[in-house]
C-alpha cells in the first residue's frame, strides 16, 4: 500500500474516521489543534458530526452522549485539557460507555509548557478521574503505530464497553512521518456496529419499560454499585492475560535493559544498535500498552545476567519507573535517564547513561 506523509495528529484523526468514528467534540489546545481541525473538515464528508465545544468539560460530555447512542465517538486534548475532561471520563467509565480519547501530552504540571512531555503517566494509568476505574492505555511511538492503535482503540472500547485512552505526546502530534492508512470501514459496517452490536445503546428503543436501554454513571443502591465495580475489576484483571502489547528488542542476551514507552521508546530503540556496535549488550522493553502493564517481559529476565535496567522517560520526577521498580523488586538496580518540561529526550543522553552503567567513557 502507498505511503502517505502525514502529521501525527491528522493521521490519528483520519485513522479514527476510517475505523468508523462519526463523532468528535473537542476544544483547542496546543500541540494537538490539527486533530479537531482535521475532524472539522473530514467528518462532514462521511456524514459524521464535529463539534467544537465551548470547553473541554462540554466536549467530553458531548462524547459521553454520542457514545451512549452507540456512535463511535472520540475526543482529544493535551495535558491540562485532559485534566479538565477527567469528570466526563470517569462518568463514561462508570456508565460503561465505549469511547476513545487521545492525550498529546505536553509539559506539566499546571499549564506547563506547549512542548512535548510524558508527564501524564500516572494520570493515564492510575487515576484518569475519580473512583478507581481503569482503561486500556495505548502508547504509540511512531505515527504509524498511532494510526494502528487508534483503530485498535475503537475495537477494544466496543469489546469492553469501556473508554480506551491513547496516550501520545507532542512529538507524535506535530511530527510528519510516512504512514500506511487502514482501509475505510464500509458504511454498512459502521451502521451495523451501532445498530445490531450495541443493544445497550440509547437509539430510541420502543417504549418497553422492561427492556428499555438505561445508561447510568453510578448506582443508588450500594450493593448494586459494588456489583458493578466487581464486574469492572474482573474485566481489568482479564486484560492482563489477553491484551498486553510490548516490543522487546535484543533483550535475550542483554546485560543492560532499557525500558521506555512512546516517543522515548523509539529514541531508546535507535540507541540499541549504536551501543551494540560499541560492544555493549543492551536491549529494550517498550510497552505498547501501559495498562495492562507488560509484567511478564520483566519477570522473564535473567537477573543473574542483567546488570541494570535503565528507565528512559520524559518526566521529572519519573513516573513509569515506579511501575518498573514494582515488578523488578530490587532484583537489579533501576537507573533513570530523564528530561522534562518540554525538552525532548536526547539520544546522546541515552547513550551516555547506558555507557556509564557499562563503565565506559562517553
Amino acid at each position: 500500500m502507498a505511503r502517505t506523509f502525514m502529521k501525527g495528529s491528522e493521521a490519528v484523526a483520519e485513522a479514527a474516521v476510517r475505523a468508523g468514528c462519526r463523532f468528535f467534540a473537542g476544544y483547542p489546545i496546543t500541540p494537538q489543534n490539527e486533530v479537531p481541525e482535521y475532524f472539522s473538515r473530514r467528518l462532514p464528508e462521511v456524514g459524521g458530526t464535529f463539534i467544537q465545544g465551548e470547553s473541554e468539560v462540554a466536549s467530553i460530555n458531548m462524547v459521553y452522549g454520542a457514545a451512549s447512542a452507540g456512535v463511535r465517538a472520540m475526543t482529544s486534548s493535551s495535558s491540562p485539557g485532559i485534566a479538565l475532561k477527567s469528570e466526563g471520563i470517569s462518568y463514561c467509565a462508570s456508565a460503561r460507555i465505549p469511547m476513545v480519547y487521545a492525550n498529546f501530552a505536553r509539559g506539566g504540571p499546571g499549564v506547563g509548557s506547549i512542548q512535548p512531555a510524558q508527564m501524564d503517566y500516572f494520570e493515564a494509568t492510575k487515576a484518569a478521574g475519580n473512583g478507581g476505574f481503569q482503561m486500556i492505555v495505548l502508547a504509540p511511538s511512531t505515527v504509524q503505530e498511532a494510526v494502528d492503535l487508534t483503530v485498535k482503540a475503537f475495537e477494544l472500547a466496543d469489546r469492553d464497553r469501556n473508554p480506551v485512552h491513547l496516550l501520545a505526546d507532542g512529538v507524535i502530534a506535530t511530527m510528519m512521518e510516512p504512514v500506511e492508512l487502514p482501509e475505510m470501514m464500509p458504511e454498512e459496517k459502521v451502521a451495523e456496529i451501532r445498530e445490531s452490536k450495541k443493544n445497550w445503546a440509547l437509539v430510541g428503543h420502543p417504549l418497553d419499560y422492561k427492556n428499555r436501554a438505561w445508561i447510568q454513571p453510578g448506582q443508588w443502591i450500594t450493593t448494586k454499585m459494588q456489583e458493578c465495580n466487581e464486574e469492572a475489576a474482573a474485566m481489568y484483571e482479564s486484560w492482563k492475560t489477553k491484551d498486553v502489547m510490548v516490543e522487546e528488542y535484543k533483550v535475550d542476551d542483554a546485560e543492560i535493559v532499557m525500558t521506555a514507552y512512546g516517543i522515548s521508546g523509539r529514541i531508546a530503540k535507535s540507541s540499541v544498535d549504536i551501543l551494540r556496535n560499541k560492544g555493549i549488550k543492551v536491549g529494550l522493553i517498550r510497552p505498547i500498552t501501559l495498562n495492562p502493564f507488560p509484567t511478564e517481559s520483566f519477570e522473564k529476565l535473567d537477573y543473574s545476567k542483567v546488570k541494570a535496567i535503565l528507565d528512559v522517560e520524559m518526566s521529572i520526577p519519573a513516573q513509569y519507573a515506579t511501575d518498573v521498580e514494582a515488578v523488578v523488586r530490587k532484583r537489579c538496580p533501576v537507573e533513570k535517564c530523564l528530561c522534562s518540561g518540554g525538552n525532548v529526550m536526547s539520544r546522546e543522553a541515552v547513550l551516555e547513561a547506558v555507557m556509564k552503567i557499562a563503565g565506559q567513557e562517553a
Partner: protein
Amino acid sequence: METNLCVAGFGGQGVMTLGKFLASATCDSTDKNVTFFPSYGAEQRGGTANCYVVISDDMIGAPLGDVMDDLIVMNGPSLNKFIVTLKPGGRLFINSSIVKDKIERTDVEIVEAPVTELALEMGNAKVLNVIMLGVYVGYTEVVAPEIVWGTVEHKLGSKPKLLPLNKAAFDKGLEIGRAARK
C-alpha cells in the same frame, strides 16, 4: 546512513515548507525512513522558526537530533543559535544576502547563496526557500533533484501559475549547489 538536517530562519521565509518539500519527496519516491518536525513559537511571522528533517536507511529515533549533519540558515540569529549543533565535517548552507557574520568554524563545509537577492531578482521574494532547496539538493543529492522537483510540482498543483517561477528558482539553486560541489 542517516542525515539530520535543521532548517532555520525567520517565520515567513518558508523554512517549514522547504523542510516539508524535501521530506515529502523522500517519502513519495524512496524506501527510506523520513521524519519532519516543526519547531516554532506562537508567532506566524517575524519570530524564529526552524524544522528538522531526518532521512535514514534505518529506523529513526528522535525526529530532532542533537547533532546536525546539515544546517540551512536563512538569517543571522539562526546561525548563532544552531552553528554549535553542526557536527565537525558537517555542511552549512547560508543565505548570504542577510547573514553577514563571519563563520568562525573551520571544520565545516560552507555553501553560500544570496537567496533573498536572487528571489527579488526573479520578481518574487517568496521563492527564496525554493532556491535554497535547490542549492541543498544540488550540493548534497540526499534525494535526486528530479524527485524533489516532482514533489514541489505536485504540491503546487493547485496553483499552476506559480510553477514556472518556482521551476526557475529551483534550477537556479541547483546550479549554485552543483557549482559549489566542484
